[in-house]
């Protein structure tokens, strides 16, 4: 009976947790992932370690993947995309395409967990020179190096002596239309700063920020640890522009608490890029007729008190498809979406009383 089957779209942290919840509750699962492996952005973007626990990403994500793939109720479709949706929940008929073959799957409810994409700093190329200067990189580029256990200045291959992070790139910006705080970049930049200092004790690491948003336990787990134990410098005032001076990149801005202009040479500049809705998130919103909220992410109906229910019956959302989310948000939403999706199909099956 199709009603007992629930589809999760997206195999990242939120989708995997939703999937695990569904099979744990005894419902059939179809997990659709357009990439050829599970694990989502932490795996595809080669994160070295997860924030804030600093656990090795592959180990942590493998644990999540194993919890789903080893379950007999799980039907996992990698390299698959959704091309058509017919009917309404609990009688949804969804067309899955993999390579040349396509198949219609009938499900009772859906969890959309299609996540975010990293902001493309090329949009701001005139200011930070990401595509012009080798030594201007992003958090993601830095993760790749850190995962390989080394951190170098791209233009020379040598270890850098002075590295800075520029926070809020692509976030909190009316001109870009991205008015949101991406929530995780302060924590991730700080985590990477710690990793760089541990790898290169002679390298100065500076974080230029507007205000550090280290909510909850990140405050002492990451921020205080970076400052007090690893001697990472946090300097208030965002960089306005990056230019070349000889072979080095020069960051220019204001050191706001000194009230003075700041022009300092850097070996490596790391742009703390934020989140935007992924292409998959936008595509699924169209496919399922899900309205977007005013920032352009999938809308939920319950505000703070219901973070996973969309205005479309039987379709739920989890993780960064609904707005910037850290891992804890994504996992919590995954569990909540599984519960609500299972409850949705179960209520339909129950006899009407009275």
């Amino acid at each position, binding site marked *: 009976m199709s009603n007992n089957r629930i589809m999760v779209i997206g195999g990242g942290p939120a989708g995997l947790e939703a999937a695990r919840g569904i099979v744990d509750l005894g419902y059939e699962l179809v997990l659709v992932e357009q990439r050829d492996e599970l694990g989502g952005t932490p795996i595809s973007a080669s994160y070295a370690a997860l924030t804030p626990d600093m656990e090795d990403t592959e180990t942590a994500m493998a644990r999540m993947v194993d919890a789903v793939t080893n379950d007999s109720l799980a039907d996992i479709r990698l390299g698959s995309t959704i091309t058509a949706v017919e009917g309404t929940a609990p009688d949804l008929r969804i067309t899955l395409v993999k390579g040349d073959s396509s198949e219609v799957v009938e499900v009772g409810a859906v969890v959309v967990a299609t996540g975010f994409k990293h902001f493309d700093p090329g949009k701001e190329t005139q200011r930070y020179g990401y595509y012009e200067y080798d030594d201007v990189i992003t958090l993601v580029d830095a993760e790749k190096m850190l995962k390989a256990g080394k951190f170098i200045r791209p233009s020379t291959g040598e270890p850098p002596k002075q590295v800075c992070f520029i926070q809020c790139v692509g976030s909190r910006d009316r001109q870009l239309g991205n008015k949101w705080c991406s929530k995780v970049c302060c924590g991730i930049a700080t985590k990477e700063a710690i990793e760089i200092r541990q790898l290169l004790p002679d390298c100065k690491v*500076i974080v230029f920020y507007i205000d550090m948003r280290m909510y909850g336990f990140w405050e002492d787990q990451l921020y205080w640890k970076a*400052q007090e134990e690893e*001697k990472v*410098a946090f300097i208030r005032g965002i960089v306005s522009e990056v230019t070349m001076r000889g072979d080095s990149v020069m960051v220019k801005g204001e050191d706001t*608490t*000194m009230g*003075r*202009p700041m022009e*300092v040479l850097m070996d490596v500049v790391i742009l703390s890029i934020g989140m935007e809705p992924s292409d998959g998130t936008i595509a699924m919103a169209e496919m399922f007729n899900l309205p977007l909220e005013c920032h352009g992410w999938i809308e939920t109906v319950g505000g703070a008190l219901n973070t996973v229910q969309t205005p479309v019956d039987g379709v739920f959302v989890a993780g960064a498809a609904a707005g910037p989310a850290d891992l804890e948000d994504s996992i919590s939403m995954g569990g909540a979406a599984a519960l609500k999706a299972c409850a949705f199909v179960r209520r339909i099956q129950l006899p009407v009383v009275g």
Partner: protein
Amino acid sequence: MGDHRYQEYVEKDDAVIDGIDVSGAWNRMWVPREVTEYDFTFLDRVTDLSGGESMGWCYECAECIGVCPVDNVGSYGPRKLYRKLQIGLDLFDHPDLWLCTTCRNCLRVCPKEVDMMQIMPAVREQAILNGNVPGELQEMLQNVAEYGNPMGESARKRMRWLKKFDEPVRDLSKEPGEVDVLWYVSDYFSYHPRGIDAAKAMVRVFNRLGVDFGVLGRNERCDGDSQRLCGETGLFEELAEHNHALFEQNPHERLVVSDPHAYNAFKNEYPKLTGTEYNVQHYTQFLAEKTEQLAGMFTGEFPRKVTFHDPCYLGRHNGEYEAPRTLIEAVPGIDFVEMFRCKEQGYCCGGGGGGMWLDGLTADHTFERLSENRVREAVDVGAEVLAVCCPYEVSRFEDAVKSTDNDGKLEVLDIIEILDSCLGDD
């Protein structure tokens, strides 16, 4: 355009090079506006010191600046110091090292527990080793090292204040034996004219109350707490060893001190070195326990409007706010008024942490003395008398009364002098 300067500069008022007068603007050098480097050399050097670690913990919330007494009269405070260190300030050779009075107001409010009471002595100790000590402070430290007191007076003259004073005082250096109260007189009560007034008042009050007390006489030496905070750890240890031996040699029930700095030393610092806990009280605590007895003995009144200045080392450092107030309020006829900044929020007189001997340097970096700022506040609340109970304060505030043109409007008295004035003769 007013006085706003877009660019800071340095210049010497008087400069002659090769016979050519280049005074003033002719030798002006502009300080670049741009921060061009973040040089953490000296910040790291500070945080690598034992005691200096927390300098690196500042996250610039700036709560400290709001309560730093020095920032009221200049531009200085822990957050500002941290920022200067981040752009390369050599604190080990810079006037900012000597502006902190260790009043503890910053630590009271600091969410990160950046502790200037640890940082300052640690960095100053290194500065002293490098020979970077302000001359006026160096002179004081030499005096303490050679003579056992900051004034450089001979130890033999430590009891000279008793001359022509016909109250009985047992000098344990001459008449050893057991006493109930070992009174640690302290340097300013022994040598400073206004301190001596208070010391004599203390003797009269003790005698009226029938206190069995003795003093260490010529053997007493400076408690060393302010010298410790100036970075003279070695000197402090010598003084602690010396005074500790005297306390051991002279059996007593309790140690009563005139000076909150001594109180802090004996209560919190000496035990770390000697492993001994001292049964120590500030004189206001000792007398507050006898308030009832005192009240029955008052013969006169003190019908004046009085305010009280909390000493940093009695209040914030040791949590005692009530004992001095209990005594003041017990005085017949007194009209007591608090200043706006009192108790935990009390303003600093500027004398702590070596400030007592740094007036010259401090004057170059502040527009008025802390004591002047405080005296204005006392006048603002309408006080006729500023009551104090720290030997550093009478002279500091009396000078400030004069320099703020409040001569005749505000009198500075130690609480013991007020009590004494109401006890009359036998």
